[in-house]
């Protein structure tokens, strides 16, 4: 298999077949939290793509050159990764506020929320030590930095796609006649159930 098609498979596998939100149940807090309207969900998706890709490269480097060689990875990776993500988010926020007010307005307020987003931690852990979260069974036992980047990009784009789709559905639901008891969150969960049922249809694509 050529490298390009391998990368494409890695991307599709991460984005659709093993969609982190709807087939792996990771990162659900923002999925329900910010999917109330289209605009916020777009901002959140953008922020997640941005932070996840950076976080994964950072954890990959730290795992490969610090934790693994020192032999402390097995028990220090959780605190180390979460600290990396938290400080990264802080820096990105400070930098954006100064450097790019436009971008900051688009996704600034979602950045602090991302620190406690399991999806970022999961994707970052997965690209540093693949196979752990079983996010993508097509992954080998270790990834190159390039593969890790493509993989994370796939995960975050899949995250954004699912989030925006769900937000669109929820906007329509606002106008739908729903029983009083089910209005709001309960019907959102039932919609999510149907959406995730649809994602099961992706399983088995390209043998992923």
């Amino acid at each position, binding site marked *: 298999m050529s490298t390009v098609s391998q990368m494409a498979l890695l991307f599709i596998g991460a984005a659709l077949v093993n969609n982190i939100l709807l087939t792996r149940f990771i990162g659900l807090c923002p999925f329900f939290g910010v999917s109330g309207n289209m605009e916020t969900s777009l901002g959140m998706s953008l922020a997640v793509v941005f932070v996840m890709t950076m976080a994964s490269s950072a954890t990959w480097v730290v795992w490969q050159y610090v934790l693994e060689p020192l032999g402390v990875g097995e028990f220090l990776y959780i*605190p180390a990764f979460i600290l990396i993500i938290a400080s990264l988010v802080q820096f990105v926020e400070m930098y954006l506020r100064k450097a790019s007010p436009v971008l900051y307005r688009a996704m600034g307020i979602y950045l602090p929320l991302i620190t406690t987003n399991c999806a970022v931690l999961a994707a970052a852990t997965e690209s540093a030590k693949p196979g752990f979260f079983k996010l993508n*069974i097509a992954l080998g036992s270790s990834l190159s930095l390039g593969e890790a980047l493509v993989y994370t990009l796939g995960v975050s784009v899949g995250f954004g796609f699912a989030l925006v789709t769900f937000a669109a559905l929820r906007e329509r639901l606002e106008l739908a006649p729903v029983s009083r008891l089910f209005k709001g969150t309960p019907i959102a969960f039932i919609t999510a159930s149907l959406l995730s049922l649809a994602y099961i249809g992706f*399983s088995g694509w390209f043998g992923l």
Partner: protein
Amino acid sequence: MPKSFRLVLSVLVTCVIAATGLALTYGATAPRIEEQKRLAEQRSLEAVMPGATFETAGEADPLVAAAETAAAPVDFVALYRAFSDGQQVGWALRLASRGYAGPMQLVIGLDTSGSVTGVSILSMNETPGLGTKVKSEAWFIEQAGELQPGFTDADVRGTMDAISGATRSSNGVRNGVAAAGRIYLEVLAGEEGEAR
């Protein structure tokens, strides 16, 4: 700047204390984790071939490389020779086959004629209550025992019925058994009869 110094210091102290605590915990639990892993593997080996003693084939063993090729696309993990009263009675194979939700670690016992003596699922991530039926419904795995010596992929498909509602998990096990058949035909059959 005493203020910022205090801030950095407090974070550092927390990190150092945490790291030390974790290192101690790891030191205390690591041997036990290893031991549990070894025990689980031992139990699986016992289950597929009761009463035998096992010897792991090392990395350098030519059979290992050949078995790896024969097993593809299923991942080969380890090969064990099984002895009883100093006589080789068969092999056990540890394979990682893809189920519905990630790899399933299978241990498959083969006797010297090439029939399956038993299959044991060492670990899996299948959906509890659904994919895990491959383990809880004993008839499924027992079907492997009906395979004739020297069975092929087609025989596995013909003999072992999948569990309804757990098709992909069943396929994981069936692919594993089929890989064991291939390894026997292509690699192990030649070694048959070699005395220790």
